């Protein structure tokens, strides 16, 4: 006899089997098909910890430290982990309001709940001390060490530049950078960013649910070690730089000093300047705003590279060389001057002096008339039938001096100046309807020509070297092996024969000895100089001077521009002279002159 209900075992077995099958299907879905759980698991456990390398240091040419790093701490937050935090206490500790706290939490959450973001930057050492003790209370918050750029001498702000938080545009372009990273924004910090920054390291660590570290993931298989940034050895002489900044106090303008035998920039002053420490760290944005909003002084504007002036009389030297090269000018060529150059309806004024003059004396006293005649000769008598061809020849010779284009150096934001094109005159005068007289002001460095103080200093270097230059540069060695970019060792020759330089230098020497630049004289140093007055339609003319010293074995060339400084002799000449004295002699004998320069201010 069959027992009752025996068949029901099949129903029960079927239920058990189907539950088992459902479980297996579900497991298959969770474990094999759906990948999101694997990602979530990694997010739970793995933390990617970036190791920031120390940024490279910057030294001057004599080994003096210009930039170093100071330790600082950022308070980081991982929004997902924030639990039961005493907001009031934390706010009090880092001195922020509750609203700010909420705002920052929102921002951090919007960025990512799983990736730490910076909550408070650059906590002071004292606050760090307090915070460290209580950090265990603030789950989800931790401190990350960082470094801050410091400038012990507080000089060369424009040159050294500054670093700032990387912008979203750069993050998109270069995946090396992550939000909150720093990048060189200007100056050396920018042009040598790759060398200075080093390479970030990455550590993949495991953390448990209580945020306790559990060691490295897969024995550090995915870790990389950070590589410290390379140090920069600059060509700057910190003493000269500091001295130049002091001389330029209360004046607008710039000083560029170059060692002509190498193209190394010894000093590059742009005034008004600022303390580079202002643009480092906590108060960056506040200070940047203050500096950037000063529209009158424009302290962030690097005049040495970006200000473009008409070169004035210093450009006569270029035309003197071109005239000789094209065979229209000789040492003994004489041109008349009757208080200026008068021809047709063109009148270029000059001051009172003996007439006619030869080339040397024309340079010495900077005769406008002489160089108008010379320029007219270049355009009309240099063997080109056509004004346009002659002009183009002249233009190409000018540009071989490095004018009208950038040097491709290691400085950021350099501007090219301007050498006018024939097309420019076509527009003004009509196609080919212009003659030498139409553009005669080019002969004395006025008109459309624009030069930067760096180009002006390079002109002095070319003269000192009798016809060649090295690209002016600011770094002479990179890293331990002190590598230098090959292009800076590449001699660049101008299209003027060496023999034509002597007479020009002779005139410049006379200019310092007896002419317009006598204020530059230093006992026991033979020098060559040339004053200039850059016409300024907006007010008082700019005072310009270039100086080469010593003349026979040039160690330093200087260009000085003092905006609204009037005659070259007033400000630019003594300042250039003091720079040379400081560099060659180490100390200043002419203390009265020095004092006058320190204290003098140019109203504008």
């Amino acid at each position, binding site marked *: 006899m069959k027992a009752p209900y025996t068949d029901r075992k099949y129903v029960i077995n079927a239920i058990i089997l189907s539950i*088992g099958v459902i479980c297996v299907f579900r*497991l298959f879905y*969770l474990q094999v098909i759906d990948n999101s*759980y*694997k990602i979530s*698991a990694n997010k739970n456990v793995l933390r990617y910890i970036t190791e920031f390398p120390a940024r490279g240091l910057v030294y001057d040419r004599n080994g003096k430290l210009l930039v170093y790093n100071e330790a600082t701490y950022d308070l980081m937050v991982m929004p997902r982990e924030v639990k039961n935090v005493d907001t009031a206490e934390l706010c009090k500790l880092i001195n922020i309001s509750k609203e700010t706290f909420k705002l920052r939490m929102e921002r951090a959450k919007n960025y990512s709940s799983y990736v730490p973001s910076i909550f408070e930057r650059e906590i002071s050492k004292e606050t760090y001390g307090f915070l460290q003790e209580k950090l265990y209370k603030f789950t989800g918050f931790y401190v990350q060490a960082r470094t801050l750029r410091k400038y012990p001498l507080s000089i060369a702000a424009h040159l050294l530049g500054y670093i700032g938080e990387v912008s979203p545009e750069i993050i998109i372009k270069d995946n090396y950078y992550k939000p909150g990273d720093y990048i060189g924004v200007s100056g050396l910090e920018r042009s040598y960013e790759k060398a200075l920054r080093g390479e970030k390291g990455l550590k993949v660590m495991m953390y448990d649910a*209580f945020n306790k570290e559990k060691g490295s993931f897969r024995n550090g298989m995915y870790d990389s070690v950070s590589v410290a940034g390379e140090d920069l050895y600059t060509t700057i002489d910190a003493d000269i730089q500091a001295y130049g900044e002091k001389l330029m106090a209360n004046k607008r303008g710039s000083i560029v000093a170059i060692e002509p035998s190498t193209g190394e920039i010894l000093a590059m002053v742009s005034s008004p300047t600022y303390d580079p420490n202002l643009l480092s760290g906590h108060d960056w944005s506040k200070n940047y705003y203050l500096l950037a909003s000063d529209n009158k002084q424009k302290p962030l504007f690097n005049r040495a590279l970006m200000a473009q002036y008409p070169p004035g009389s210093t450009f006569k030297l270029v035309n003197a060389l071109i005239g000789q090269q094209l065979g229209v000018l000789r040492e003994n060529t004489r041109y008349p001057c009757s208080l200026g150059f008068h021809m047709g309806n063109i009148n270029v004024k000059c001051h009172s002096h003996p007439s006619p003059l030869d080339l040397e004396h024309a340079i010495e006293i900077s005769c406008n008339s002489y160089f108008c005649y010379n320029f007219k000769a270049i355009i009309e008598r240099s063997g080109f039938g056509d004004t346009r061809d002659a002009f183009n020849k002249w233009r190409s010779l000018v540009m071989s001096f490095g004018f009208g284009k950038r040097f491709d150096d290691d400085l950021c934001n350099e501007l090219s100046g301007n050498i006018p094109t024939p097309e420019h005159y076509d527009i003004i005068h009509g196609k080919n309807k212009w003659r030498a007289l139409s553009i005669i002001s080019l002969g004395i460095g006025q008109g459309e020509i624009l030069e930067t103080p760096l180009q002006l200093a390079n002109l002095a270097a070319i003269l000192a070297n009798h016809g060649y230059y090295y690209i002016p540069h600011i770094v002479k060695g990179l890293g331990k092996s002190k590598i230098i970019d090959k292009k800076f060792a590449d001699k660049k020759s101008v299209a003027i024969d060496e023999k034509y330089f002597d007479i020009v230098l002779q005139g410049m020497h006379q200019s310092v000895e007896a002419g317009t630049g006598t204020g530059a004289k230093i006992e026991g140093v033979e020098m060559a100089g040339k004053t200039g007055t850059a016409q300024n339609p907006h007010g008082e003319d700019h005072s310009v001077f270039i100086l080469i010293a010593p003349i026979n074995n040039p160690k330093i060339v200087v260009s000085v521009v003092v905006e609204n400084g009037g005659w070259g002799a007033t400000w630019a000449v003594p300042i250039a002279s003091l720079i040379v004295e400081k560099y060659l002699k180490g100390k200043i004998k002419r203390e009265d002159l020095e004092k006058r320069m320190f204290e003098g201010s140019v109203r504008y």
Partner: protein
Amino acid sequence: MREQKNIFYNIDWKTVGLYFALVAIGWINIYASVYNDQHKYIFDFSQNYGKQMIWIICAIVISLIILMTDIKFFPTFSYFIYAFVLVLLVAVLFLGNATGGHRSWFLIGNFKLQPSEFAKFATCLAIAKYLSTLSIKIKDVKTKLVSFLIIGLPAILIIFQGDVGSSIVYVAFIFVLYREGLSGNVMLFGVLAILLFILALLINQFIIIGVLAGITLILFFYIRKRKKEIFILIGSFVLIAGFVFSVNFAHDKILKPHQKDRIDVLIGKEVDLKGIGYNVNQSKIAIGSGGFWGKGFLQGTQTKYNFVPAQSTDFIFCTVGEEWGFVGSTVVVVLYVLLFLRIIMLSERQRSTYGRIYGYSVASILFFHFMINVAMTIGLAPVIGIPLPFISYGGSSLWAFTILIFVFVKQDANRLQLL
């Protein structure tokens, strides 16, 4: 009657083998779930795996004692054991130690004894004893009432302890009653009620009632000539509508907040992963991250690093899933299913009704534990804190399940000695 010389005579090694396999898997995974470098020694009694090792050794001793007891002992003392456990369940309400909102433990030295674990075993004995009485017929209303009383009494006492999860397991006895002749409609209604419960929470109740009304109307046209059936039809419609209305009321007003939340999380009404959804989500992450082959022994991070709650007790299956992957999890599921089917097979070959009913009780209790626990960890059931038999850490539960299964093994070994 023959006296057995050998206590292992005629025991079902397949069942015992499955039992030991699961216990061993349990210990390995407890070891992995709390493993850390400082405590590698497997007898480190400060760690759960060290303690579990003791519980396992004790469990083996218990199983040997059971195999040595006289075959008539448990049938004879069924009611007595049942009564004794009921006394303990009452006593624990007054003398017990409250942990985690449950007043379920007697603290004896370092050891926490949980009477509710043993109550399941006692209930199995009592229901087997009662239903195997010769004059009993399940069709009788009285039989049904007494059966529900035997099952319901411990369940209600356990609810009083605050441990709703453990009391739900008593629903398992419906399988036993079904096997013994209770109408299958009871189970069917149960399943339908659960479905309706979930639907009522997910969908607007008026839509459900509208649909039900439509179905009723269609059925009405089919059976309009049979008065009695129309009566039943309308009656059930009213009942179901009432049920649907009361679901939301029960959900909002009667369930405790954490119970409500657990249901909300399960049916996807609530997705707060940091708050109440945390447990289930982390559990799914741990299992899901195991992949096909698993991360390997001791390579799990989610359980070991405490992302998963109660990782060596209620959520031990997460460690299996994470470290042994789909393959390992499936093996465990298959082992369980084999064990359940084996016990049912053995039950069916019992000559005594007592043996059969007891066997079905064991299978049902174990199956329910397994189903609820695994379904919870993979997000198919709400979070109900009950252990996974043989695998979860815990002395009381391991011993209770050991007693449960070995009393049956003993019964089975002696099945030929007719009582």
